[in-house]
């Protein structure tokens, strides 16, 4: 689980005065609370399905990498991407509504938890295919170079995606062409029930990225400042034409999806794993360094709780998309919609 490596960064924290830790704390708390509410939505039977993958335990990856990104940067995420999108500025109510399959959601209820996107925020899309969103950043990198936009494109994915060949193809292309691209592997130690060391013989994942010619690092994802620091180095490197790879080690606090109780993990491991809590770590550090008092942080938490409670109310009140919207957006708006099966049957039967 520790996954240390020769190039693991110890993290150089900025002086307290210009620390971003309070901001990171708020971002991470918002993610944590949002995910808790997603769980609640499910329990209340208001989510669309049970394929809900919570990123609790991974907040530092989302907040830390996100902090290294600029407004023009783009990204793709995996099926456990709520936190990343929130860190990039998503409206939690529209996210929650999407998770509920409602018309008011980011994708009008068509996408759901695993297919949220927002072009305005540079979110090129979450993906329910493990590794599915990775090669898109190569294309976004080509685009950034073509348009001299200065944008970096970042692929977020889990340790499980290191099983997908498309990752290596894409890393190879990015390195070959010196594209403004970063591959971020959120190594939460598990792909469903498979522990990382049951999926690969060498768990020092950055080594394979380095072998393709990428700037590669592994960091411990308990400390958001360490993550942010490494991400800044790699993202700015990528902007200068040196694509990177960052593995962030953390622990998936709960089951793979809402119905999984992780029977394949032993309790001692889970208990230890949940101690690797980036939100708790940041809180302790804020207090310890005097950057924030307990009460201030409690106020932040309460504030966030209220914000996230509202997302559930919003979602429950929201309506299902109209049935006819089913045929919309298969093709562009000016194109004819696909003909419904009923219409075709009508024509066949109305032959007299």
């Amino acid at each position, binding site marked *: 689980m520790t996954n240390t490596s020769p190039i693991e960064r110890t993290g150089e924290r900025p002086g307290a005065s210009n620390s971003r830790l309070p901001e990171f704390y708020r971002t991470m708390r918002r993610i944590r609370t949002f995910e808790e509410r997603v769980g609640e939505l499910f329990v209340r039977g208001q989510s669309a399905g049970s394929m809900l993958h919570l990123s609790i335990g991974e907040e530092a990856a989302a907040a830390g990498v996100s902090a290294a990104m600029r407004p023009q940067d783009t990204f793709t995420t995996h099926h456990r991407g709520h936190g990343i999108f929130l860190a990039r500025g998503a409206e939690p109510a529209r996210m929650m509504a999407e998770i509920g399959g409602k018309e008011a959601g980011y994708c009008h209820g068509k996408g759901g938890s695993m*297919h949220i996107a927002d072009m305005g925020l540079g979110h090129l899309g979450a993906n329910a295919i493990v590794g*599915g969103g990775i090669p898109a950043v190569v294309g976004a990198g080509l685009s950034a170079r073509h348009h001299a936009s200065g944008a970096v494109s970042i692929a977020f994915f889990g340790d499980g995606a290191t099983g997908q060949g498309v990752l290596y193809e894409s890393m190879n292309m990015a390195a070959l062409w010196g594209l403004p691209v970063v591959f971020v592997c959120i190594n939460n130690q598990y792909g469903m029930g498979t522990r990382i060391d049951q999926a690969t013989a060498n768990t020092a994942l950055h080594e394979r990225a380095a072998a393709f010619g990428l700037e590669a690092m592994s960091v411990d994802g308990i400390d958001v400042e360490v993550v942010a620091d490494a991400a800044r180095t790699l993202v700015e490197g990528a902007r200068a034409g040196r694509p990177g790879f960052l593995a962030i080690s953390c622990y998936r606090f709960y089951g793979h999806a809402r119905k999984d109780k992780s029977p394949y993990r032993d309790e001692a491991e889970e208990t230890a794993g949940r101690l690797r809590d980036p939100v708790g770590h940041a809180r302790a550090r804020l207090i310890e360094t005097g950057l924030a008092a307990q009460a201030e942080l409690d106020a932040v938490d309460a504030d966030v709780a209220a914000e996230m409670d509202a997302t559930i109310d919003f979602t429950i009140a929201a309506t299902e998309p109209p049935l006819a919207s089913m045929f919309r957006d298969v093709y562009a708006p000016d194109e004819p919609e696909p003909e419904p099966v009923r219409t075709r049957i009508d024509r066949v039967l109305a032959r007299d």
Partner: protein
Amino acid sequence: MIELTYRDALRKALADAMTEDPSVILIGEEVGRYGGAYGVTKDLIREFGPERVIDTPISEPSIVGAAVGAAMTGLRPVAELMYVDFIGMTMDQLGNQAAKIRYMFGGQIGVPMVLRTQGGTGRSAGAQHSQSLEAYVMHTPGLRLAMPATVADAYHLLRQALRRPDPVVFIEHKALYTMKETVDLDAEPLPWGRAAVRREGGDLVIVTYSRQLHYVMDAANRLAEQGVEATVIDLRTLNPLDFDTIRERVNAVGRAMVVSEGVMTAGVAAELAARISEECFDYLEDPVVRVAGEDIPISVSVALETGSVPGPGLIAETALRLTGKRAAA
């Protein structure tokens, strides 16, 4: 007679085959310790050990490719693709390798593997986890294709698939896993490749397979209440395709409908409708009607998901109109 779920019947088929034939192995994501994403392989790793129940990294192309190599060298692998939606990344190993090896190499060797997977709507799983992609497989010569609709077939077709000399793609339906039936597994099963006539009726023939069988039976019962009697054919395997049974029934009845959850255009329903239309032409009083999935991706919204594929309502209504036409004529 025992009461069994579709899931447990599959599990029993795997366990029985593994007990009988030591060359049968399972290979795929989460088939071992986790017991399969839908629980089909639960506890088999305890019974048969990790050398025969092999958990893999998330590498679908290589899982299928490894099964091909294993099958060519004396094993009988059952590879699992967690969702048929992931078949897209494996179509090279499946369509260019597994399907063509016997042929390209002049008959020297076969690829006796089974690729188990599941598809279909019903769990609000969104566009990339709800598809019915059997048409890709049916259109690929060299691949057999089984799609059980019943608990008994879940058991028997899987057992039979595991004795076939050629690669079999075996597609379960995610909405059927918890379905229960009382079955006598010792009774002689229908032979491999034979369709089952699930119901007899003189007004129209409905040809279907997989979960849609249940919607069709439901619709047929509603139709019967209105005096319309349907013959219902459950194909069970799409390759081999038992067209003899279809032809015989359609020629006798003169009216046919095909029902498939897959996208209508260039799908399985198209093949069935085309073939019935061409071979039963002189016997058809009305056009063959296709009731199939919409030509759109599947949404996560429950309303849109349900609306995207046929249900008993649309099937019954269409059958009624089709047969009503005859009455009117």
